[in-house]
């Protein structure tokens, strides 16, 4: 069976389960069925509020994701290849890994202020330790023979990074991005919930206060829909390209 068919059936089964549950609950204000969401979805879409808030959240996710990934990859690579540095930085990593997201967010808002910088910094700081840990494992597993080869043949530093190091780290970077993007968007929502006046998280906060379950679902599902599209159109094709040599 082709992948797209399996994907379709799988999602359809999920919708079916939802419909059945909504029927069992019997109260649209507690659990609206998928059909009940169409009307509010269309009205939010028409007013522009949905696209505006979705856009704002997506931008925050992209900014935090790029920052966390680049800093995390560099740190992970350094710590994985330099045991001396690793010994010094590892305790910090453990501290930050175990610092609750909420604490970092609150502290950032308190210290930096209720602004965009604080929001992005809070999300980025939450994600960096995670990326670093994953990439460090990859860096520790780098092939020493390829390193020796590059050294003997005096490969250029940039060529070495791009064509020897990066392909070896690719599965780890893919793993970190996958888990990263999902975690980041959830933290972005918390950040928006607590201290921003736009974005999906803010809208959810708003409709939570109004006890409007349908709108809460409309906003969160729109973002999930967006993420599925990103996954299928961007992440999976990119991964297939990077893995081509394994399948050849």
């Amino acid at each position: 069976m082709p992948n797209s068919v399996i994907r379709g059936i799988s999602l359809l089964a999920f919708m079916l389960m939802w419909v059945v549950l909504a029927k069992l609950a019997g109260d649209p204000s507690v659990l609206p069925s998928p059909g009940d969401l169409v009307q509010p979805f269309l009205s939010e879409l028409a007013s522009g509020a949905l696209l505006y808030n979705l856009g704002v959240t997506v931008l925050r996710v992209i900014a935090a994701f790029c920052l966390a990934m680049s800093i995390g990859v560099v740190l992970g690579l350094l710590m994985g290849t330099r045991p001396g540095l690793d010994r010094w930085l590892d305790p910090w990593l453990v501290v930050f890994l175990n610092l609750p997201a909420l604490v970092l967010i609150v502290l950032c808002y308190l210290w930096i202020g209720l602004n965009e910088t604080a929001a992005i910094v809070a999300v980025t700081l939450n994600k960096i330790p995670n990326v670093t840990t994953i990439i460090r494992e990859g860096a520790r597993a780098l092939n020493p023979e390829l390193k020796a080869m590059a050294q003997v043949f005096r490969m250029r530093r940039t060529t070495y990074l791009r064509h020897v190091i990066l392909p070896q780290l690719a599965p780890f970077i893919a793993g970190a991005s996958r888990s990263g993007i999902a975690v980041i968007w959830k933290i972005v929502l918390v950040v928006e919930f607590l201290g921003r006046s736009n974005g999906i998280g803010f809208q959810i906060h708003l409709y939570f206060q109004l006890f409007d379950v349908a709108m809460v679902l409309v906003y969160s599902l729109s973002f999930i829909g967006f993420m599925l599209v990103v996954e299928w159109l961007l992440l999976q094709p990119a991964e297939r390209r990077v893995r081509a040599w394994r399948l050849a």
Partner: protein
Amino acid sequence: MILRVDIKSKFFGKNQILKDVGFMLKPGECLAILGKSGIGKSTLLRLVAGIDTDFEGSVQRPDALAFVFQEPTLLPWRSALDNLLLVHSDLSRARALDMLAKVGLSDKADQYPGQLSLGQQRRLALARAFAGRPELLILDEPFVSLDEATAAEMTELTRTLMTEISPATLFVTHEREQARQLADRTLELAGTPATVVPNVVHPVFQREDVK
């Protein structure tokens, strides 16, 4: 002299592996290093190549260096052609293709190393080594784990390329026959820690004579 090696000692932890190993190579000369497996031949080559710098003594080597490892040590995620081009930044595409043709891989330029047989991967590693026109070529048992016919083929190919590019060559083997076919002279390692076997008359091979 293109290579001067004077190694006083090499330790791994508390174990001394090498003791007083010294030799020199003239341009174009080929020296085979013989010795039982595990004696420290590969370690010696790594010290000579500068991969391992943790030892007592000194090594003077040229800049244009090439190494053929025991394993092919290719980039599995890049094509055969890119394996030459990425390693040698100043190598032109035409010369890389020419080099592939010389080792009989002209139709494999676009394939990944994983699609090649072990013999072909080793030939690619050989092409990579010679493509940089090295002044010093180091081979670490490059024909190990090949069947007899392929190994003979590889030896012949190596000899042809050595004649054409004439680098000073240092290679490790545990087969005297192979040493006879490629080397001008041999040096034997023995003992713990390994050192150059004294009082051995190093036979002078005429590699041109052995055909």
